[in-house]
């Protein structure tokens, strides 16, 4: 099938208007030896055949009834309103709102998104989104070097390993040096040459830092050093102190938890917020409120574009153009659908349910919780038999936790367990049961 509207007669008519004799003549500028005979691509499919084919293909993936896997991508319930709104074709079939007056709907929605993010994080300003959490962190790293004119970064251990890799790639591109340090050596590594300290909290292993204290320690040693916090599941902000209240300079996060389906890890949403004073160094789009030139009414418009590539070209703060607008809209709808009450309760349920699982696992012979700090919805567990645990989970149709040696080969027999509000009591008991069965000293056979 295709989505062409012209019949043969219409094509002929149009060719005549143009003054050429054939479609081929329209490609007269192309050297003949470059013209293709025919693509070696299968014959096109009709919609029913296409759907059948894709259904069959999708069925080669496995869906579980409940998940204990997180590690940067989370299962949270998505309110029906989210898909309803992002399926409105006035939103999803639009381009970037270059003509403000015909794009007020989207502009207002993204302004509302910026508002929701600043309120949630208590940061001064938030942009209209970047690609995802990992690139948000990389952009933050670069922004810190622009703002400080320094080319050295320190990353605190515990950042998502894939985020670290992305930061590494971006930094290499710009000859920025960076070092990953353990918490106990962090302060000793700081000096005037450091542009920023980047850390994740709750971190990849689940630990929640005392952020205010950490920031204070950094400020004491290196007052001009920026502090950048990243999060992979910002639903915790329903309960945790927001970065804006801990004097964080740049806050970034993966927004997938806010109403975006896992989708094999993308598209997600790069949340990006900072202090007001760094506004003009920020990457990405910003929507601003303004007035009619000749009128009374207010409206919304893309603003501070002189930071951006299409105006500033190689002097831009970033190369980003297309961002994740529809995902930002989804997350806005998520945030307003849950509202204050819902966001607080969701965070509480994540705290409580994962705490429950933690405590239960700790009582099973052979299991040991490795986190020394408070945790949100993820934590590290040393297991008597990882493979058996994974096997038991699958038998119960549960998506098993992450075997952490995937990223850290030295960490043997350890899994990163994620428990959210989406795990029902029943799912949780199944998981605990699976863990029991996978315990060497399991109670009563099987």
């Amino acid at each position, binding site marked *: 099938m295709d989505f062409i509207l012209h019949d043969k007669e219409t094509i002929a008519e149009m060719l005549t208007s143009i003054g050429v004799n054939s479609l081929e003549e329209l490609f007269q500028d192309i050297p003949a030896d470059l013209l293709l005979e025919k*693509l070696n691509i299968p014959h096109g499919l009709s919609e029913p055949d296409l759907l059948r084919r894709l259904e069959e293909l999708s069925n080669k993936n496995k869906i579980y009834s409940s998940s204990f896997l997180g590690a940067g991508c989370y299962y949270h319930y998505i309110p029906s309103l989210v898909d309803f709104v992002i399926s409105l074709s006035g939103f999803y079939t639009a381009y970037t709102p270059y003509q403000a007056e015909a*794009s007020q709907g989207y502009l207002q929605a993204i302004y509302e998104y910026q508002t929701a993010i600043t309120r949630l994080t208590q940061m001064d300003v938030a942009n209209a989104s970047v690609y995802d959490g990992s690139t948000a962190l990389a952009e933050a790293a670069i922004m810190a070097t622009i703002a400080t004119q320094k080319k050295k970064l320190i990353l605190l251990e515990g950042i998502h390993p894939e985020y670290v890799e992305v930061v590494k790639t971006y930094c290499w591109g710009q000859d920025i040096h960076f070092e990953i340090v353990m918490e106990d050596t962090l302060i000793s590594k700081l000096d005037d040459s450091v542009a920023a300290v980047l850390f994740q909290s709750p971190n990849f292993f689940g630990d929640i830092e005392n952020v205010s204290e950490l920031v204070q320690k950094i400020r004491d040693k290196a007052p001009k050093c920026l502090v950048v916090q990243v999060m992979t599941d910002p639903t915790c902000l329903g309960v945790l102190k927001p970065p804006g209240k801990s004097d964080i300079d740049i806050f970034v996060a993966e927004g997938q938890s806010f109403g975006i389906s896992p989708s094999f890890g993308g598209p997600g949403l790069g949340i990006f917020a900072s202090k007001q004073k760094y506004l003009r160094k920020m990457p990405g789009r910003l929507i601003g409120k303004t007035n009619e030139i000749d009128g009374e009414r207010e409206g919304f418009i893309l603003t501070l574009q002189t930071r951006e590539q299409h105006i500033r070209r190689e002097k831009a703060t970033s190369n980003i153009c297309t961002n994740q607008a529809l995902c930002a809209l989804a997350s806005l709808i998520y945030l307003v659908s849950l*509202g204050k009450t819902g966001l607080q309760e969701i965070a509480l349920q994540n705290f409580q349910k994962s705490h429950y699982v933690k405590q239960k696992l700790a009582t099973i012979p052979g299991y040991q919780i490795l986190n020394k700090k408070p945790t949100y919805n993820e934590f590290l567990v040393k297991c008597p038999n990882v493979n058996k645990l994974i096997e038991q989970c699958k038998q119960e149709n549960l998506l098993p936790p992450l075997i952490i040696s995937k990223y850290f080969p030295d960490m043997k027999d350890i899994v990163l367990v994620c428990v959210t509000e989406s795990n029902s009591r029943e799912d949780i008991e199944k998981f605990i049961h699976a863990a029991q069965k996978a315990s060497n000293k399991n109670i009563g056979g099987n």
Partner: protein
Amino acid sequence: MTSNLTLIFNKGTKRSQHNFIPEMDIDRADLAEIIPSSFQREDFPLPDIPEVEIVRHYTELSRKNYGIDSGIYPLGSCTMKYNPKINEVITRLPAFSQIHPLQEGNQGALELIHQLSEMLIEITGMDGFTFQPAAGAHGELTGILIMKKYFENKNLKKNKILIPDSAHGTNPSSAKMAGFSIIEVRSNNAGEIPLDHIEFAMQQGDVAGIMLTNPNTLGIFDRQIKDITNIIHKYGGLCYYDGANLNPMLGICRPGDMGFDIIHLNFHKTFSTPHGGGGPGSGPVGVIKELVSYLPEPSIIATEQGFVCREKTNNSIGRIKCFWGNFGVIVRAYAYILALGAEGLKRVGQIAVLNANYLRVLLKEKYHLPYDRICQHEFVLSDRGIENNITTEDIAKRILDYGLYAPTIYFPLIVKGAMMIEPTETESKISLDNFVEVMNKIYNETKTNPELLKNAPFNTPVKRLDAALAARKPILHD
């Protein structure tokens, strides 16, 4: 009737909301045992907003927003084509939308990416693809980093790059992010690249190569494209193809055959994935055989045990994004290509070019066409000859009054007062004729009623907005 500026936050109530929270089915422990109270937030300045208000608010906003389902969306270089509805269904199939990037049982997803890669290799003439980049600019960065790594590996210090003056802003800024400095290539009168200019530049020895889009942002296919890429290669350079304008080339001619070494695609343009009002996109990068090992990990290969990830290579530039890229977008592009097949893709290229040329010949009767030749997907008009101090912006705003969207304006920078028009292949002749009629009416208005244009638009939810004020006193949230 209600003010257009009631934000959703003003629709909150003091009634606490429970619609979207599962009932807690675990006994709660004392919270202080779990998380110290000093770690907790004090206030939460978001209201609770009733479901009904949310639905009505965004229904209204969506109606205040022009989309491709409203009509022609002639933004040049943006390829705003129809987005097939079935792709929205397919990408929401649970076994696509609900799978975790780190789960086992991902063979369907890996097979899809692998097959798509094979098809793109055929369409573009490249030898390998990565799907990690989230958009075009991200693909550019990836591609240019590959260049960087390539020369690093060869121990060659090549830190400059050639970019024509007609290039999109992302090209120089991406190159800059990869540590290159930019040499701007001035286009000649035909809108093409002067060969001597690039030959001279390459001779200096520190130039890594060139970033080009072809057809370029004037809609012109550079007839000497093989010569250009030959010159670059002659001096050991690499040629980067900005695939944002690939649409008219589908099934017609391949960047690989033109001599390009690295290309990115914009799925949200050429392959019809909805642009989403600004994203998400997907900007896969393809490379020639010699560069395949430089692609970011993971890349997927077929084995007898099924689809698996390629082992790490030393050449790889590393990771450019978490996980596998924007999979939800990738699924749509895959479905689109399967739906169209070889014939359908070729028809896209042909009709995109037909439609653009049809508009070109009809519009040049009134408007100045600086490069008057057969175009490909788009063409650029200028405001030359428009009287009464009327600007391109005025014309664009007036188009909105007729219920249509305006072209890209003031780009490319090499045309003064540019109006860059790309109708795409999914407009009917009636739609194109209507666009011409509107443009002609406006042309007449420039003479008969210039004030109308200067104050346009009138039929939009707001009148012309003050961009200068917005930048001078940024109000970025409520």
